[in-house]
């Protein structure tokens, strides 16, 4: 009888462990596959991308970008749907540019997606902005410049944006972006291109 109880306890523990494991896997999967938190929120007037040249509007139309679905998530950064079902992270920090991917697997296992917008040559940019979209567990990002780190909190819409100062640019290109969670815990680090 005692042995049966022990077996029962072992079996129950195994089931509990398995359930916990499945829960963890489901949580990780959900973090990796869910769209950005602002992708489908209600739009307001402040979400519109304004003052675009006509040539850019035609170009956006030609690639299937639905500018009427834009949602502003940080300074000069928007989420915009495409007609083919992709979701785009559109930056207006320098001209207009974007990165697009599948809406329902936007993060693809990454904690953040970032874009670097520059004016001037790659060796000596005159202006540089790093902006992006973060998963809900990311609370801030840190960009490492040779002169020191620069931090940005994640907005309530899951975006961030850091524009380099002249002193930071004078020290060289940024080398790394780190996604930080609660209490500054490092979630993921990205090596940034140097050219």
């Amino acid at each position, binding site marked *: 009888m005692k042995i049966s109880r022990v077996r029962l306890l072992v079996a129950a523990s195994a089931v509990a462990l398995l359930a916990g494991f499945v829960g963890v896997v489901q949580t990780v999967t959900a973090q990796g596959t869910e769209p950005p938190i602002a992708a489908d929120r209600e739009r307001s007037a402040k979400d519109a991308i304004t003052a675009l*040249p006509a*040539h*850019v509007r*035609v*170009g*956006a139309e*030609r*690639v*299937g970008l639905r500018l009427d679905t834009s949602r502003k998530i940080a300074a000069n950064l928007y989420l915009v749907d495409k007609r083919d079902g*992709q979701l*785009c*992270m559109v*930056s207006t920090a*320098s*001209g*207009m*540019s*974007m*990165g*697009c*991917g*599948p809406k329902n697997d936007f*993060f*693809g*296992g*990454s904690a953040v*997606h*970032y*874009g*670097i*917008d*520059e*004016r*001037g*040559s*790659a060796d000596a*940019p005159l202006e540089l902005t790093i902006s992006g979209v973060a998963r809900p567990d990311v609370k801030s990002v840190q960009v490492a410049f040779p002169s020191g780190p620069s931090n940005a909190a994640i907005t309530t819409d899951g975006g961030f944006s850091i524009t380099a100062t002249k002193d930071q640019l004078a020290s060289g290109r940024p080398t790394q972006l780190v996604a930080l969670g609660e209490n500054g815990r490092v979630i993921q680090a*990205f*090596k940034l*291109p140097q*050219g």
Partner: protein
Amino acid sequence: MRLRIATGAAVGVAAAVVFVSAALAYTFEGPKTWLPNWSADSTFAVWYSATMGAKGSSGYQSRITFIDNSGGGWHWSHTDTLPNTTTFNYDSGYYKAHCKNNDSVSYIATCWTN
């Protein structure tokens, strides 16, 4: 009967839109495997946009830039980590599009203009 004609017309219009969209894109390099730092240029023209895309998955850094034919100046250089990376020609100037594998690993991609 009316419904059939309307459905047929809608399908025809949709097919035409897809065909025209595809016809508007001009592939200037790829699909191929891009080693780190490999790059390619389009011809000079007044493009609407340029894309380094069809990467299949995210996490690979690509750079797209427009370069002018007078001083070789770079305009609106953009790098990101999503499967399709695009930059728009913001002032409708006469430029070549420049795309580059800006990552430390190789990946498959295609570069095209619109």
